[in-house]
């Protein structure tokens, strides 16, 4: 029936693998921050943070197993926030 909700079970093992990935990406952020890549450093840090967010959202928050509508809504809100940042900085940079 339509009211069924996701009953996908993410195994213990898979959750732990996601957590290990998250720890590795945390290490990557810390390592990269030691190099002075000027403006690029903050961009790399934000990209790594966004990859971590994607992992948490997809597996810990079960978005990968939700229906398309919820997935697209969450994606839409994320893109909206990025759009706001781009519009803001297009104002400051030029």
């Amino acid at each position, binding site marked *: *029936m339509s*009211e069924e*909700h996701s*009953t996908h*079970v*993410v*195994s*213990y093992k898979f*959750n*732990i693998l*996601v*957590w290990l990935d*998250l*720890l590795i990406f*945390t290490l990557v*952020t*810390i390592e990269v*921050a030691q190099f002075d890549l000027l403006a690029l*450093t*903050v961009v790399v*840090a*934000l990209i*790594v*943070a966004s990859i*971590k*967010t994607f992992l*948490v*959202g997809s*597996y*810990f*928050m*079960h978005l990968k197993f939700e229906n398309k509508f*919820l997935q697209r*809504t*969450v994606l839409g*809100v994320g893109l909206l*926030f990025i759009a*706001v*940042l781009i519009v*803001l*900085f297009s104002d*400051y940079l030029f």
Partner: protein
Amino acid sequence: MSSEAGTHSHLFHRDDYGKKMGMWLFLFTEVLLFGGLFIVYAVYRFKNHDAFHEGSAELNMVVGAINTVILLTSSLTVALSITAVQLGNRKKAIDLIMITIALAFAFLVNKYFEWYGKYEHGLFPGMEHFQQLSKGESQFFHLYFFMTGLHAIHVIVGGIFLLVIALGIKKGTVNQGNYIYLENAGLYWHLVDVIWIYLFPLFYLII
């Protein structure tokens, strides 16, 4: 046909999907709340790059990294507790939630010593030494205290939320067939983790 009619004749209509959607809508408002602060951070940082550089040099990167690992691990234990409930293992689920709450407490203890250290160095808004800081550094520390403080409040709220759910599992109101409240508490907890995922590099790493 008859079996389908049977599924409609429950005494209560439960709408788990609606509850989950409601939680997500609430999380979107949280994104707006913190998003606005991140935008303020971005603009001030753009205008006072060097001061923000010096400000983050004052913060202890190791404490920040430890707290990152603590929160990531607590996110794992919440995710595992959902798996445990789905598999019908109540005791394991409760234990995992209690570990999560212990980790939340450890996070807050770290935060307390961190803030106290800043306070002792006069780096708290309103203190004499604080008023001598440059405008940019003052902005950095105002944002640091406000954003990590607001985040810490979320950690406390999330911990209480999870404690209520753990009691629900113990009583049996949250169970293998009805665990939407655990899922929603988990969603809230993961959002708190995600916010920290951005706070950590932006404040603690000199980037």
